[in-house]
């Protein structure tokens, strides 16, 4: 048991750590497993101190093999455990694809509903930290396209704290994306608040209200888009009122909330770091267009990565959507 609970300004990494701690305390079946999650506390320190407090049968340093991590987590789940797997970096989830896509996602359906697979796969994602290749990927679209999974992304400390607990409490497999370049950003988290009163994990949240255009984003791009909205409001040029919606749930999408906003504003921009081509933004754009066809003043525009591998870090500022590229897209929706 941690002593203190109540409001505190926590980094996103720390908020996850506290959320994991609560989950470990609450349910002895919760396990944490992955590479370097024990003494090291993970390369981002998200699991810092947990092995010390909960022991090495509950916080498990595994052999170096992602398929093994997810595959054995499935087995543990079948035995009644609730494993939370850490994939060290986004690019290293791919060796586990078969276990995630063919096994984890489909096993409940295969069993005709007899089995449940409460496995959480935590993936630090996205760029912006000056890392080498394979450490800055945004693979959410692969999993969003995979039926049987839930896919969520937290964008700030309070969501990190509650959503990781909600993900662990869910009886469905959850791919949980953590915006790695936001790990060190602080925000107020009320660790005393009742989890049951929190916004459900599959609901979007309007983080900034506005009237002229809806900007949809998630994970690391939430802050970028809020900054863009502030600049658009307060900046030198023509003032625009941007509504920023943090999707939080990538599969399923909170279509109701999205459509309600776009119907009101008549314009929509989707922002993510992953390549635009066949990215999640495509789904959002297609769906928004279907649902809001007569309300749209312009096509839904997408801002995201290029159809190239993630570039070396000295070029990543060009690859990653930033305030300017978001505002450029916003401007273009007005030019239609």
């Amino acid at each position: 048991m941690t002593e203190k609970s109540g409001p505190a300004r926590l980094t996103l990494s720390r908020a996850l750590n506290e959320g994991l701690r609560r989950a470990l305390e609450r349910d002895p079946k919760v396990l944490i497993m992955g590479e370097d999650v024990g003494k090291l506390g993970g390369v981002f320190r998200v699991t810092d101190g947990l092995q010390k407090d909960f022991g090495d049968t509950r916080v498990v340093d595994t052999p170096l093999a992602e398929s093994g991590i997810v595959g054995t987590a499935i087995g543990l789940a079948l035995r009644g455990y609730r494993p939370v797997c850490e994939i060290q970096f986004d690019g290293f989830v791919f060796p586990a694809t078969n276990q995630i896509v063919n096994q984890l996602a489909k096993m409940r359906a295969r069993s005709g509903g007899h089995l449940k697979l409460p496995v959480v796969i935590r993936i630090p994602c996205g760029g912006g930290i000056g890392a080498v290749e394979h450490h800055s990927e945004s693979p959410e679209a692969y999993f969003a396209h995979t039926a049987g999974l839930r896919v969520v992304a937290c964008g700030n400390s309070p969501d990190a704290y509650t959503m990781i607990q909600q993900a662990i409490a869910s009886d469905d497999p959850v791919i949980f994306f953590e915006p790695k370049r936001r790990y060190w950003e602080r925000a107020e988290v009320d660790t005393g608040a009742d989890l049951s009163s929190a916004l459900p994990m599959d609901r979007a949240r309007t983080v900034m209200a506005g009237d002229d255009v809806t900007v949809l984003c998630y994970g690391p791009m939430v802050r970028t888009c809020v900054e863009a909205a502030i600049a658009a409001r307060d900046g030198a040029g023509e003032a625009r009122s941007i509504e920023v919606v943090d999707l939080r749930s990538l599969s399923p999408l909170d279509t109701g909330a999205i459509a309600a906003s776009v119907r009101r504003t008549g314009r929509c921009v989707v922002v993510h770091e992953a390549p635009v081509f066949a990215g999640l933004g495509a789904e959002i754009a297609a769906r928004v267009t279907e649902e809001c066809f007569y309300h749209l003043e312009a096509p839904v525009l997408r801002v995201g990565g290029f159809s190239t591998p993630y570039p070396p870090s000295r070029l990543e500022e060009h690859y990653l959507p930033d305030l300017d590229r978001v505002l450029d897209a916003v401007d273009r929706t007005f030019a239609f």
Partner: protein
Amino acid sequence: MTVNADGAAAAAPYPAAPAGPPGPGREPEPAPELVQLLTPEGEPVEHPEYAIGESADEIRALYRDLVLVRRIDTEAISLQRQGELGIWASLLGQEAAQVGSGRALGPRDMAFPTYREHGVAWCRGLDPMQLFRLFRGVSNGGWDPADHNFHLYTIVIGSQALHATGYAMGIQRDGAVGNDPAGADGGTAGEAVIAYFGDGATSQGDVNEAFIWASVFNAPVVFFCQNNQWAISEPLEKQSRIPLYHRARGFGFPGVRVDGNDVLACKAVTRKALQAAYAGQGPTLIEAYTYRMGAHTTTDDPTRYRLQSELEAWKLKDPIERVKAYLVRAHGADAGFFQQIDREADELGERIRREVRSMPDPGPLEIFGNVYAEPHSLLAAERDQYAAYLDSFADTEQEAAQ
């Protein structure tokens, strides 16, 4: 693959590495050893570590299992030919490996099959109808693994080896290992897992990762590899240049090769490996050396890639015949006993044909069932849309009818 006339598969020269002469530092492979308790002729064999421990009744029961699972297989093949099943993966030739290992399992042990373990399913008490639902295309599984401690079939080769290992790690966390096999309960208080896979599966990364996990965590899991000599059209040499049970040496746990057509040896070897697992001694790899006497599945045509003579040689090692011979010779089983089993098989066959033929198709909206444990907005919307779409035809038909 050469097979000696006396059926001693283990003595058959093992295919050498494709290379030339062994180089400096190449260790010669020791002659493979094969645990056998009954010869193909039904003669009991002495073995330093294993012995036939079954009573006459127990052996009769095993014989019954062998005959009945073969009958399930035969019926399935003909039902597939009649279009009642979409496909079938025959176990012909592998009955002893499956019944021997399946009957070695304790009630609390958990089995993770591939797609061919109909004999293990039988031993665990799963109604064969459940299997037919899968092969008919009515379900992708659908039984509750907890009902008989028999997991769902896994079609993607090797994936279940990791599930089995993870499950075994759960057993460890539940404190259900480490019971003393020399103790009062004979080690039966423990729990273990058995993971089935084929010779081809040993090439998958997942199976090797399972070996690593099981070894590092010393998990109570028995890896039961049915080496039926073929992975569809590929002979064993395409997967390994040494005997498969040697693989375990590279991971630091014991490997043993057993005559996979000898139900008593399979049972004894599996039992011992399970007991080691119960007692906290970790994993064992068992290679059941057997033969896939049929096609890979009903859609396969083995004449394209293997010689009839190979099959003929293996027919001499039939897993059922040797038990029959042994029962007659050692336990005085008479024609009446065998007739009774055949009658039971006929009844089973009759029930299978009847029930498979009358198996209803699932309703279309079942597509949307059981994907998620908790409400899912998108799926609910898709379901409603599709239901409305189907209804629109009903309307049209009604209109047309009016």
